[in-house]
């Protein structure tokens, strides 16, 4: 049974989720089932993490044909690039079931399905399979926001769904193009990543396909200027959904770029990397500035999350191993810190029934443990050394400077921008005099503390002793950068020259 | 000779279409559709004769079965509509108006 760990991790939640939706299951039973499934997935995930060899190739491979005539196969595997994303998708879910109990059973069913689909998307090594999971991933979100969201949920859910599907369809077209290109080149159909990354694509059609992929992922990440669905969706979604969206789903967009766009469209990618990097940096600054003036703290954190995603995405476009590793590391670091922030926020909202920053004050004296947890997560999100956030952010800035000094300098402003709105938020919510609405606020219960504590510890451990994690990422990142460098060197003429020279410095 | 049959089939089919678009009476519309089905049947049977193959007959049988099913349902709907509106005018059933 444990031979098919990945399939198990994917389909256990999906099947259970579908069961919860279709069968008459009570609310508490659904929650218990969800919790059990997610804990099992955590165990499987830990097993994978511990037995992962740190080679540069795929491990835990499962492969069987799905549609043989078109070369589509059920092909799963994990490598250093997907490992940490997989961990983020596997490890964080039990918290949701433990912390929030006032939802309907359909909510838990959807949550399970979204988890399975996300794990599937991360593990898929076949583009068509990936696309299927990618789309399945969106549906539960649609229901979770549309059914259980805030007052303006319908607008938000329609926007996120149509926006994301529009991007996905472009990607579907690009996937079909890739399959045809492979057919033309070799006479055989295949959508497997290893086969496709060997193609040398050129010409306007390849560029269009590249754009198709990039748009799909840019919307999911979201990359400036495709972020406009985000504030509404994050704000209107129930907290656990916001958590899923920001902590994990956005990362799958980043992961998609690294996994699919970079190896397949290496040439186009190298050519447009500078523009994409600008988009990342501008997005970081833009959303960071917008975050400062928000009155609703969920909305503020939505912008904050988008701002961080800009920096994370930037790491991919710098095309060196420091930045790429930084991005992969930051994926988990940001998932944990933002995840905790959103979860705590959900608890705060549940206790005080408001999200307006001005209604708060003095929580630190009412709920010191909550305040400490929030502070640790906040410090990780502003990249304080000693927390997980620093390692990734520093590596990305370091890599960005190698890529392009101006981009690097702009990227480093995140140190200042992040701290501005975060401290302001912390001041208004946790410091100052207790406000009316927080007068009867009570601290975290024992269960809540025990639920969140492991993640807090993880944040700190990942900041102080990150090397075991980096060891698992490094070989794959090295391999990808080496492959990319080769392409850049071959295609080296006008605009590639600068990159290369700086690289040898 | 067969082309005469087929031409007749075409002619009947066109008459059926004309019936559907020119009349407002539910019954007439319904029977016009039956007419089109019969025109198609004639085509099947004629071509079956041409090819000396009885597959056409089988298809004709199936069409009749479908027509019977359709008749059963359609007439039930007609009765319902008549009960609701007391009228047989297709133009008063315009809930799909955009």
């Amino acid at each position, binding site marked *: 049974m444990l031979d098919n760990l990945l399939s198990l991790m994917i389909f256990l939640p999906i099947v259970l989720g579908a069961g919860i939706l279709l069968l008459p299951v009570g609310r508490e039973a659904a929650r218990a089932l969800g919790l059990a499934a997610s804990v099992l997935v955590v165990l499987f995930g830990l097993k994978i993490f511990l037995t992962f060899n740190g080679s540069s190739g795929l491990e835990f491979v499962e492969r069987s044909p799905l549609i043989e005539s078109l070369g589509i196969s059920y092909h799963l595997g994990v490598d250093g690039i997907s490992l940490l994303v997989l961990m983020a998708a596997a490890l964080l879910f039990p918290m949701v079931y433990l912390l929030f109990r006032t939802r309907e059973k359909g909510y838990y069913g959807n949550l399970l399905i979204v988890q399975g689909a996300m794990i599937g998307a991360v593990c898929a090594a076949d583009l068509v399979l990936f696309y299927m999971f990618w789309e399945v991933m969106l549906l539960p979100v649609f229901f979770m926001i549309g059914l259980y969201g805030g007052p303006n949920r319908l607008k938000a859910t329609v926007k996120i769904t149509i*926006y994301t599907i529009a991007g996905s369809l472009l990607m579907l077209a690009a996937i079909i193009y890739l399959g045809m290109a492979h057919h033309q080149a070799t006479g055989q159909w295949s959508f497997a990543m290893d086969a496709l990354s060997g193609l040398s694509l050129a010409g306007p059609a390849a560029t269009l396909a590249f754009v198709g992929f990039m748009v799909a992922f840019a919307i999911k990440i979201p990359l400036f200027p495709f972020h406009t669905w985000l504030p509404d969706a994050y704000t209107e979604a129930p907290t656990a959904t916001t958590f899923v969206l920001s902590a994990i789903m956005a990362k799958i967009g980043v992961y998609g770029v690294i996994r699919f766009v970079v190896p397949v469209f290496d040439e186009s990618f190298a050519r447009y990397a500078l523009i994409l990097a600008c988009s990342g940096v501008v997005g970081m600054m833009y959303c960071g500035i917008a975050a400062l003036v928000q009155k609703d703290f969920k909305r503020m954190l939505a912008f904050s999350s988008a701002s961080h995603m800009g920096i994370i995405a930037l790491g991919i476009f710098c095309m060196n191993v420091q930045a790429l*590793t930084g991005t992969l590391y930051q994926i988990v670091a940001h998932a944990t810190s933002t995840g905790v922030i959103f979860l705590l926020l959900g608890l705060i909202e549940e206790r005080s029934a408001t999200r307006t920053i001005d209604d708060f004050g003095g929580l630190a004296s009412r709920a010191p443990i909550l305040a400490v947890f929030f502070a640790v997560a906040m410090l990780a999100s502003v990249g304080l*050394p000693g927390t997980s956030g620093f390692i990734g952010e520093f*590596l990305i800035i370091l890599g960005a*400077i190698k890529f392009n000094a101006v981009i690097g300098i702009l990227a*480093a402003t995140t140190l200042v921008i992040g701290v501005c709105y975060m401290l302001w938020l912390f001041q208004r919510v946790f410091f100052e005099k207790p406000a009316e609405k927080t007068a009867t606020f009570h601290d975290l219960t024992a269960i809540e503390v025990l639920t969140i504590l492991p993640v807090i510890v993880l944040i700190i451990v990942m900041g102080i002793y990150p*090397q075991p994690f*980096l060891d698992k990422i490094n070989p794959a990142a090295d391999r990808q950068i080496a492959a990319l460098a080769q392409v850049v060197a071959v295609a080296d003429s006008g605009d590639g020259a600068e990159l290369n020279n700086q690289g040898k410095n | 000779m067969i082309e005469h049959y087929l031409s007749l089939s075409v002619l009947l089919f066109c008459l059926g279409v004309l019936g559907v678009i020119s009349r407002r009476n539910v019954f007439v519309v319904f029977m016009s559709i039956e007419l089109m089905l019969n025109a198609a049947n004639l085509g099947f049977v004629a071509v079956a004769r041409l090819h000396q193959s009885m597959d056409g007959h089988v298809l004709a049988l199936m069409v009749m079965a479908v027509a019977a099913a359709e008749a059963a349902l359609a007439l039930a709907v007609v009765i319902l509509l008549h009960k609701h509106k007391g009228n047989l005018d297709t133009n008063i059933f315009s809930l799909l*108006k955009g």
Partner: protein
Amino acid sequence: MEGNLSSLGFIPLLPLAGALVLGLMHLATCRGRLISERIYALVGCIGPILSFLLAVNVFFALQALPAQSRFLSHQAFTWFSVGELTISMGFLADPLSVLMLLFVTLVGSLIHVYSIGYMAGDPAFGKFFSYLNLFLGSMLILVLGDGPLVMFVGWEGVGLCSYLLISYYSEDRGNVVAGNKAFIVNRIGDFGFVLGMSFLFWGIGAEGFDYLSLKANAHLLAPTLGITVCLLLFVGATGKSAQIPLYVWLPDAMAGPTPVSALIHAATMVTAGVYMVARFSFLYAQVEVAGLVVAWIGIMTALLGAIFGMFQNDIKKILAYSTVSQLGYMFAGVGVAAYSAGIFHVFTHAFFKALLFLGAGSVILALHHRQDIWQMGGLKNKLPITYWTMLIGALALAGCPPFSGFFSKDEILYSALAGGHTGIWAIGVLVAGMTAYYTFRLIFVVFHGQPRDREVYDHAHESPKVMTLPLIVLAVGALFAGFLNLPAIFGGHQQVSHWLAPSLTEVHPHGSMATEVLAIGGSVLAFVVGISIAYRRFAGGAEQPVFTGFRKFAYHKFYVDELYDTVLVRPYRFVGQAVQRVIEPYVTDGPVRAAAWLYRMAGLAFKVIQVGYVRVYAIYMVIGLSVMSLVLSQSLNF
């Protein structure tokens, strides 16, 4: 690597562990007070004191080595390693870091002890000690780190603790705002620091990113890159060490409890920038331009701080501006490549400024948290120990021979003069005079003359022993620390400079005897003039003056805060509002909304043909069929 000393890792670890334990104790019991202050105090002080003992041990271990190989290091573990970048969590004890280590742990321990008295009765006693321990641990990482990145861990850590402790009384909005200001301004500095490190890494870091490797490869650094790196690192230093233009946070930081002001905002953290520049002396020595920038910014900050200090009324604000001013001196010192002089001033300053702050704390506590000097007066008799110790501190700060401040300040001024930086020297002497003036203005107004507020005076009382004892120890330090680096002209051997030599890349200027006499004479003259003016004006018990004209301008700190608010903060918020109100809905989301609108319009347009009559739909079908037939009969060939 000359030797491995695993106890190095414990020096920062002990206070950090203390912080963790205290923090957990506090969190576990914060709803009801189950743990007495004694236990907190014990746990809180044990870490710093053990660290101090370890530091002394390290010092002797180092001293046992021959001068040129005084390096002890300890690589705890590989922190992270990506591509050519490999950073180990390593600690380095060399003469420079050990000197810092000694006084940081000593002053830190003393202030921990002092805080037991000062914070007695505070509802979050444990939290305070936890923060203080955390700060000390971070500071020790900063000092001991064997490379810029490990230093940065401590660098940011102390910034965080500074924030937490400034906002300690967090119910008051002003304190929190001051904390935010400190953190954000420090972050602006860190922005420079991170960039400086990154450029340095891509310059020469691939061979190893610790000080020893960097020093060995420093000559490979391209000159322009060198200037960039030095200036960026200095941006970091201006943030942490409150130099122009980022000094604005330090005076506001006085919102924190007084021991915090003494420890963090006077003795240790704010001198980290100077330490950093001295650490990178091998870089700054290479690019003279960068050094000059550092020196001039330093001396201008010294002047500005002194001007502001002369017109403040809050006892802690006076000392804060004095700190800014003295930090300027230090930068002037390291800027003119007199690194050992700068570090020596850091060293002496730690004693006398901590002493002054703690004394001020004692006064404030005695007067039930009054800080305005114009409400004090004549406290000499009521607080004798505080008075005498503060007097020693004041004399040291003012540069009275033979107190410690005199020697260190003189060393800097002499180096400037001997190095040919006459302008810096001249301003330095002027500032020395101003320093003497505002220091004794404070002493005279607070301790001499008649009590200005009788009721306050009557209730004043000397502080408990736990507070006066550190004062006395520090006073001894302020009095005698200067002799450690006695220049040759007074028959000394400059032990500190020689001790530091292996860590620093500096060339000692060889000035003539006349230069030396001129430097000393200038300093003494400035001191005498400053103190006599102060004596004439304030010794007799002057009343609070009304500031007008320039004085008012200086009292309001040249309206620099307001200027920053108008030029930076408001535009930033304005841009935020613009993004929120205009750009987000109409520019970035504009195309999306336009697409949705077009879609809706198209729907409305096509709605017309949906008439709802079955027959019409049939006609549509027939039309389609007809068109298809036409096309087909054109294209099909029979």
